[in-house]
């Protein structure tokens, strides 16, 4: 229990003392409530306290989202968030209800001992998956996330994305891996499918955004998808009786939980720093920030490399572990599973590559090139506290990437407690070597990679910067001999994403128009909609509406009819009881 709390709470604690920096006094109360709500969720030992803390977390974060309530869009986002949080909360409550009725009590101890039939266990699983998945922002229940996260102040966005989503993951793990008892591999398949869909649609949606914070929010959907892919693999392996492999996938998922908290927190703080000094969230207005804000630029670059799962940073390690787990599918007996998991890993690979494209776009457009607006041209360095917060997280990103064996030995307590076995072989060959299965199967030495990169770079620098050729002359950009480029001639974020938009356009609702040709000043307009609204929410909304229209018929306004209904209900209840 405590180890889970420590594992999940490390980053929250970090963020806890950071968020004091640009906080407004009114914010403090709810932020504190929010934090303590999350803390209580993790510490809860029975379903009752869990649900109360869960609601405290949801409600206080509602007020944080609605903080800048003068803006109608923020109010709408906050309401959507509240609505979805309650539907999710209801599903979780029902899930606990199933467990409690079998176990005869709300304490986790009683639930753990509950003798569930497989059918009821599956019902409880589905309810928990819907409830926690909604909070975690899994597709198609993610609609609130890209609305609510950008609306909150930046450090709260960092907390929500970095920690609150992880609390949902914690809840899911606690419910499925701990309380439900025997897991079934079919659940794993469902989690894998939803996780893959989330990862892919999340990253594609992120790639198409031009609002920095919205982009980061969509990227959270993607990362949670990756985490759930790991958990799904773990469920599949555990359900088919391959406990060591299940542990490996589980550790990979937990590692990614930590990593995502670190780099997404870092990126949201970076976005907050940009917002602070330029009042801009729109990528199309940024540019050249690296030279105006070098420290933020450096830390943001680290965050981008880490989230793009590139070595030697932390995102790579968890993705590597997930791949290693997926590669062990040959041990499974079922041919269907053996061919399903490779497809999932193909999705994971595609996701990784698209994340790299997304963050090349973000960094290239925001920090490189020339400023696209006046505010941005005069951006200034943010205060020391904000830089320190980012630097701390950036350092942790590097540390978690370079010393995976140490991190895994910390995480290891969680599977040892929940699954009864850890992953001792990961660090069995010294801290230099990460060997999740065995050294013959796969090994990765992050410290040596870093050392070799550093040595070779130093060598290249030393050998090339000697002598007469050291000089570098500044001149205008060549650009194939055209006139010196202006800021408006740069590639924009929309232009950068255009090829990929064209390739994957079918997944989105895209409207594009250029105006008429005879127009003096044609304007290019582009709107990108989320298909999940058409495919999922609109039918649900219609169903709810038509159901309520039927219920409305009861409301005739006539007192006698109401009395008749009351009488009928009473008679019915008496009949049921007797």
């Amino acid at each position, binding site marked *: 229990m405590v180890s889970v709390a420590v594992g999940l709470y490390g980053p929250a604690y970090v963020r806890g003392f950071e968020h004091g920096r640009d906080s407004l006094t009114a914010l403090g109360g709810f932020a504190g409530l929010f934090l303590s709500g999350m803390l209580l969720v993790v510490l809860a030992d029975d379903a009752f306290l869990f649900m109360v803390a869960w609601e405290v977390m949801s409600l206080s974060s509602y007020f944080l989202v609605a903080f800048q309530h003068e803006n109608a869009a923020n109010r709408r986002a906050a309401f959507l968030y509240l609505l979805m949080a309650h539907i999710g909360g209801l599903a979780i409550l029902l899930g606990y209800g199933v467990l409690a009725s079998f176990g005869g009590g709300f304490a986790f101890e009683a639930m753990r001992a509950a003798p569930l039939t497989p059918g009821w266990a599956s019902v409880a699983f589905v309810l928990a998956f819907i409830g926690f998945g909604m909070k975690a922002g899994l597709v198609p229940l993610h609609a609130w996330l890209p609305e609510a996260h950008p609306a909150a102040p930046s450090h709260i966005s960092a907390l929500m994305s970095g920690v609150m989503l992880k609390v949902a993951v914690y809840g899911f793990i606690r419910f499925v891996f701990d309380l439900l008892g025997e897991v079934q591999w079919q659940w794993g398949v469902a989690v894998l499918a939803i996780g893959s869909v989330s990862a892919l649609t999340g990253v594609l949606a992120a790639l198409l955004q031009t609002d920095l914070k919205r982009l980061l929010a969509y990227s959270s959907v993607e990362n949670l998808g990756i985490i759930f892919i790991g958990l799904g693999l773990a469920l599949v392996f555990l359900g088919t009786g391959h406990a060591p492999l299940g542990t490996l996938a589980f550790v990979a998922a937990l590692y990614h939980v930590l990593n995502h908290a670190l780099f997404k927190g870092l990126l949201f703080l970076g976005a907050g720093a940009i917002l602070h000094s330029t009042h801009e969230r729109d990528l199309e207005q940024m540019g050249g920030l690296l030279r105006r804000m070098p420290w933020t630029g450096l830390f943001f670059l680290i965050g981008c490399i880490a989230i793009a799962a590139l070595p030697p940073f932390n995102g790579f390690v968890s993705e590597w572990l997930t791949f290693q787990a997926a590669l062990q599918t040959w041990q499974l007996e079922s*041919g269907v599973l053996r*061919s399903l998991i490779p497809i999932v890993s193909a999705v994971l690979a595609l996701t990784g590559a698209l994340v*790299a494209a997304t963050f090349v776009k973000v960094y290239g457009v925001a920090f*490189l090139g020339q400023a696209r607006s006046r505010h941005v041209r005069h951006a200034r360095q943010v205060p020391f506290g904000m830089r320190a917060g980012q630097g701390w997280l950036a350092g942790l990103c590097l540390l978690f990437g370079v010393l995976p064996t140490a991190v895994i030995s910390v995480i290891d307590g969680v599977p040892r407690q929940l699954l009864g076995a850890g992953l001792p072989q990961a660090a069995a060959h010294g801290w230099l070597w990460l060997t999740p299965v065995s050294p013959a199967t796969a090994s990765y030495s992050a410290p040596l990679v870093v050392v070799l990169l550093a040595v070779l770079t130093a060598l290249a620098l030393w050998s*090339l910067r000697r002598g007469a050729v050291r000089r570098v002359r500044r001149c205008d950009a060549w650009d194939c001999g055209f006139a010196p480029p202006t800021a408006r001639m740069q590639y924009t974020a929309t232009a950068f994403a255009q090829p990929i938009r064209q390739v994957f356009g079918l997944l989105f609702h895209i409207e594009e128009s250029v105006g008429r040709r005879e127009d003096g000043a044609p304007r290019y307009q582009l709107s990108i909609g989320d298909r999940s609204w058409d495919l999922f929410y609109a039918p649900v909304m219609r169903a709810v509406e038509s159901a309520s229209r039927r219920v409305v018929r009861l409301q005739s306004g006539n007192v006698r009819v109401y009395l008749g209904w009351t009488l009928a209900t009473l008679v019915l209840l008496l009949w049921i009881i007797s």
Partner: protein
Amino acid sequence: MTAVAWGAALLQALLYAALAPLLVGWIRKVKARLQNRRGAPVLQPYRDLRKLLVKEARVAHTASPLFRAAPYIVFVTTWLAASTVPLVAVSLPTAAIADIIVLVGLLALARFFLALAGMDVGTAFGGMGASREMLVSALAEPAMLMAVFTLAMSAHSTNLASVIDYQLGAFALRPSFLFALGGLILVAIAETGRIPVDNPATHLELTMIHEAMLLEYSGRHLALMEWAAQLKLLLYGALIANIFFPWGIGQSFTPADLGIGLAAVFLKLLALGAALAIGETVLAKMRLFRAPAFLNLALLLALLGLLSHVILEVGA
């Protein structure tokens, strides 16, 4: 023993850097002969590199520090990636530091900085190149991973040395390997910017991908970028040659074995280079939006390889 092994690894890394321009020179020569030209000497790429290294570097006013750091990062990362791929001998210690997935990751890191460098000066061509490069790589990377996963699953290891050992030990014509080979060749063509995806010889602004990102580079920075691209070509060549046709590669560090290994890989690369040159002469460059279809074919082949492995070969 370990000292010898590390020595051999170092030697091999140097060999990569030394041989990379030669392969490019050879391909250009064959291509020229096929086009009835005499072509530049095979050693011309070395002269180009030397010329660029002693020239003064010019950097645009609008460039940030990242622009000047990127060539070093790109070159070093590609070089490190290359040194993990067995060239003349199998059981090198560098292969244990980084397996196939790390290799793909390192190449992605190099590409990340290459694309950022393309966007740095703020010219339209740089952004265009970066955008297209990321499109191509986003589609090529999954195909590459699927192809190497096919091998990794057969060998039960993602370690390149183990994969090659496995191939040497139990060589058989497997359908999955044929699919993987097809997929990997298509990926290699796309990733190294060869026809029909990109044309390394073009400076026609609207069609270039890789060259567009390098437009603003000059002097030693350009030399490093070019050298990195040559290294990448050699890396893919060695990967295909040594995984799918592993014969002759040195299995110990005796001079005789290393010599045979060197000769074998030399011949294999000559053949692969000639095949690439013939392919580039026969084919025309595709429109950019045909490239996704090309890469989807690669992904499909690689996935078929993986599926045929898990369905046909694991149970059997």
